């Protein structure tokens, strides 16, 4: 087991190093002076006041420069934004929790809805329920996210007025930032109207969450359905029926575990889709998250911000995917090291 953890950690670290190399290369690939792209400060500013903050060793070999870049990265010294002039590390620390919150809600909803519906479709294979669910999922999968979000805004916020248009929380509530996760912040804070603030947050997050969750849910329905159908076709499930177990018993004892094992790695792969969709939806709903922030940075040709944002997003994806894969790997007894018993 230790060797497996070691191997996955190793793989993860190497991937992250490659990513950091790429982000370092971006400084040279973007137009402009590399030191400006890295620090977000003009050469004059660097010369005048900020020299103490950076130790970039320009003029040295690329390897030495990379070493200094990494040192600055780990010190939380990620440079400054061209556009706002604020330190990037602080900015990302501020916007990242909002994105994680949104994606997490969407992921939880799509798992909670998608897996049971997938099971339902598979258990009614070749019946009306199956066909209905399948066609609904094709429909949901084919709708572009940005269009769906716009429709949702038009219908539910403008015409019906059920949900607010944009943002994360109404301006009436002043929640002091502690963790960046707004629900946690409200619970930790001592503002007078906690309950209504929470309700407001929930109202704000419903539309963006649902617009992201639709695509992921339909994907999960399809993955689950396929996996369950395949599991129910295997010989050991038939053998269980032949032993006189009822459909329910077969499903609980043998079906669910065996069907879920192949689902989770595929689910982890859907995380990137989820994150991309979250970025688009954030822009539409003016959700103050990483996606919105990154797209603004791209508009403003804010090279240091693009570099830092890209590194953060990709690191997030890599860490998430790897941890899911590792969990699955450790859970699956088939892939444990074979120790032949002597009998």
């Amino acid at each position, binding site marked *: 087991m230790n060797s497996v953890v070691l191997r996955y950690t190793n793989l993860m670290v190497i991937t992250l190093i490659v990513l950091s190399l790429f982000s370092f290369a971006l400084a040279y690939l973007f137009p402009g002076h590399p030191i400006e792209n890295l620090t977000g400060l003009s050469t004059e500013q660097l010369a005048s006041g900020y020299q103490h903050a950076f130790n970039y060793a320009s003029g040295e070999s690329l390897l030495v420069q990379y070493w200094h870049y990494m040192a600055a990265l780990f010190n939380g010294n990620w440079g400054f934004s061209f556009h706002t002039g604020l330190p990037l590390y602080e900015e990302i620390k501020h916007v990242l929790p909002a994105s994680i919150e949104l994606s997490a809600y969407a992921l939880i909803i799509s798992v909670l809805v998608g897996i049971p519906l997938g099971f339902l479709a598979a258990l009614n294979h070749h019946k009306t329920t199956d066909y209905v669910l399948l066609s609904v999922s094709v429909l949901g999968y084919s709708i572009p996210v940005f269009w769906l979000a716009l429709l949702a805004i038009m219908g539910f916020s403008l015409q019906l007025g059920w949900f607010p248009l944009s943002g994360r929380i109404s301006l009436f509530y002043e929640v002091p930032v502690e963790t960046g996760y707004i629900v946690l912040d409200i619970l930790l804070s001592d503002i007078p109207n906690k309950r209504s603030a929470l309700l407001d947050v929930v109202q704000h997050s419903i539309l963006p969450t649902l617009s992201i969750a639709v695509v992921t849910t339909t994907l999960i329905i399809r993955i689950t359905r396929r996996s369950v159908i395949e599991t*129910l076709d*295997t*010989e050991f499930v*038939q053998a269980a029926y032949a*032993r006189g177990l009822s459909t329910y018993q077969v499903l609980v004892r043998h079906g669910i575990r*065996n069907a879920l094992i192949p689902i989770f790695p595929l689910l982890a792969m859907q995380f990137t889709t989820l994150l991309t969709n979250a970025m688009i939806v954030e822009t539409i709903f003016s959700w103050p998250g990483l996606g919105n922030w990154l797209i603004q940075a791209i508009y403003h040709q804010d090279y240091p911000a693009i570099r830092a944002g890209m590194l953060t997003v990709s690191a997030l994806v890599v860490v998430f995917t790897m941890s899911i894969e590792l969990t699955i790997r450790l859970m699956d*007894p088939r892939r*444990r090291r074979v120790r032949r*018993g002597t009998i």
Partner: protein
Amino acid sequence: MILLDVKNLTLELELAGEWVKALDKINLVINQGQIHALVGESGSGKSLIVKAIVGALPNKRWKITADRMNWRGQDLLSMSVQKRREIVKSDISVIFQNPINSLDPLLNLGDQLKQSINIAALPKHLFWQRNQYKNRRVEELLHRVGIKNHERFLKTYPHQIPSNLLQKFMVAMALASDPKLIIADDPTRGMEVTSKAQILRLLSRVNQVKDTSILFVSHDLLAISSMSHCMTVLYSGQTVETGELQQLRKRAYHPYTQALLDSAPSFRKDLPPKSPLTTLAGTIPTLHHLPIGCRLGPRCPRARKECVVTPSPRKIHGHYYSCHYPLHWAGR
């Protein structure tokens, strides 16, 4: 006493939009305490019969009809699914031919064995004694099939165990519910001689000691002749000949049975050394290209014009055969 009585069992499968009779009017009678062999080439529908009896057909489209399919006087086909499962659970066990695929890969062997113990058959106990009792029973079962190191064995997963041990484990699982009928679907497939002998001896012993009937599905004629009382020969989904083993060996009426017996050199006393073995020309037809009438027709050395009509089974001294022109039969 008749345990299982199947008459004219027909199983139709849908293949590429057409309904094909994968099993055509199968007759099978199993008496209490008997070892009944079911012989046939690969693809003759042996496993389908097994699955049809226990009601574990794959989730594809199929139709099943029979004049009679009785388990100790109760009709299996007309009863509710629930009831049928109960009967199968308490009275019938199946040893599947492919142990590694027939076991759940994610559960350890101990859990799987405990699942097949029939709780209803346990003596009166309180719920906290149940697990203890099950553990004792599991241990006893494993020892019975010749697995000594039970503690370690029960904690392992199917893929960690060599297949002959798994096969013994399948036998233990089949014995767990103290069934009245064990259906052994090719239990010795791909085994080397010693393990094979162990399994066969085990099955015979269970038959003798507990008076358990065994439906022994195989194509190993030598094994069959050493232990079974009756034999049913199957060809391409049709029962060709049924009877007591000794009678069948002495005097087979159906050309296919004769060809089958001739193809096994151990049954031929008169076979000179280095002479070619007799075989039937051709191969068993696929489900897409089944001949009409007697399905052996195209391969049969004695086929004539009448063979395009399916022969009805005829009986001589408890010996059934389905052939228009039987061997040893000068009457026609």
